């Protein structure tokens, strides 16, 4: 699908800001494609309030595959792991913080996944929250510590620790936040299924935003960070941008 998303964002002053375009995502073939930053990813080390949001599309939902991860010295810090079409795990800060079952995903379909963590909540089970397509907090088993640990490792998209558990499919508009996004925030990012300029939503804490190739002209082997300074600058094998986006 080569359709792009083009939205004219109008600032509250009524003056039209730069237009937002979404024409590309990053694609992985499911055998040994992955991408990562070559520097250590330290953004959420020691924090109590973090979130992420990502659009994903899986070619075959029966596969076991990791959409993203951070793994290295100190062990796991983070992963999103799809266990076939039966389970979705979010691992963060030394353990699985959210395990959701019960959603039936479809092949070749874009989904928006949002995760928020608030270590200040007194009850462990209230700290993590997981949202799909801007909906209410998903059912599942969950819990976690008051703050994340310190990890020395890079951030990887598709698979973990190099060529293991790679995904077959696409990722787009991947964002990391140093704040706890609310259900309403994730719903705003979902925007009824059409990505938009998340930097214009007025949500604080946007630390990294990888656009899936849109700020790289849809070519090359680096996915720049649109708001921070952590580029995904190593593409393994056939990893490439593709004109396939949520619409």
């Amino acid at each position: 699908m080569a359709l792009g998303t083009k939205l004219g964002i109008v600032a509250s002053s009524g003056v039209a800001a730069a237009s937002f375009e979404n024409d590309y995502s990053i694609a992985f073939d499911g055998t040994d494609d992955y991408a990562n930053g070559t520097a250590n990813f330290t953004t959420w080390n020691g924090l109590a309030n973090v979130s992420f949001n990502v659009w994903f599309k899986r070619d075959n939902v029966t596969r076991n595959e990791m959409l993203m991860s951070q793994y290295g010295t100190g062990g796991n810090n983070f992963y999103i792991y799809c266990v076939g079409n039966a389970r979705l795990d979010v691992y963060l800060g030394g353990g699985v913080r959210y395990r959701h079952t019960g959603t039936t995903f479809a092949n070749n379909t874009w989904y928006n996944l949002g995760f928020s963590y608030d270590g200040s909540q007194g009850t462990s089970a209230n700290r993590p929250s997981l949202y799909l397509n801007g909906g209410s907090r998903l059912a599942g088993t969950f819990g976690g510590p008051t703050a994340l640990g310190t990890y020395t490792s890079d951030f990887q998209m598709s698979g973990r620790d190099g060529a293991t558990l790679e995904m077959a499919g696409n990722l787009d508009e991947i964002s990391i936040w140093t704040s706890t996004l609310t259900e309403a925030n994730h719903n705003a990012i979902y925007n009824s299924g059409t990505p938009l300029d998340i930097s214009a939503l007025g949500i604080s804490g946007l630390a990294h935003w990888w656009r899936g190739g849109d700020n790289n002209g849809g070519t090359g082997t680096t996915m720049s960070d649109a708001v921070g300074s952590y580029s995904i600058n190593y593409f393994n094998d056939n990893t490439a941008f593709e004109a396939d986006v949520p619409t």
Partner: protein
Amino acid sequence: MSRTLEYAIINTPYLGEIDFSQICETSLNTLRYKLDDTQFIIKWDEGHLPTFIEDGSVTPFVTMNHEQALELMATSAWTPTDPDGE
């Protein structure tokens, strides 16, 4: 994916015979290995069979298209169900 690729499973003892300039993979360190490390997967653009296979220096265990490669990669020999036992 826009490119059409061909895939092969190679037995690990052939590692030293692989010319990475002829395949999509770039080094020993970025290959995907079977969980028991006895085999690895490589790929190349359709119609561009690597010379190390063409001249018999390396005999693939099997060659596959993308769909077949995905099917194999999804098996328990290549993908752990629960990588951390959680």
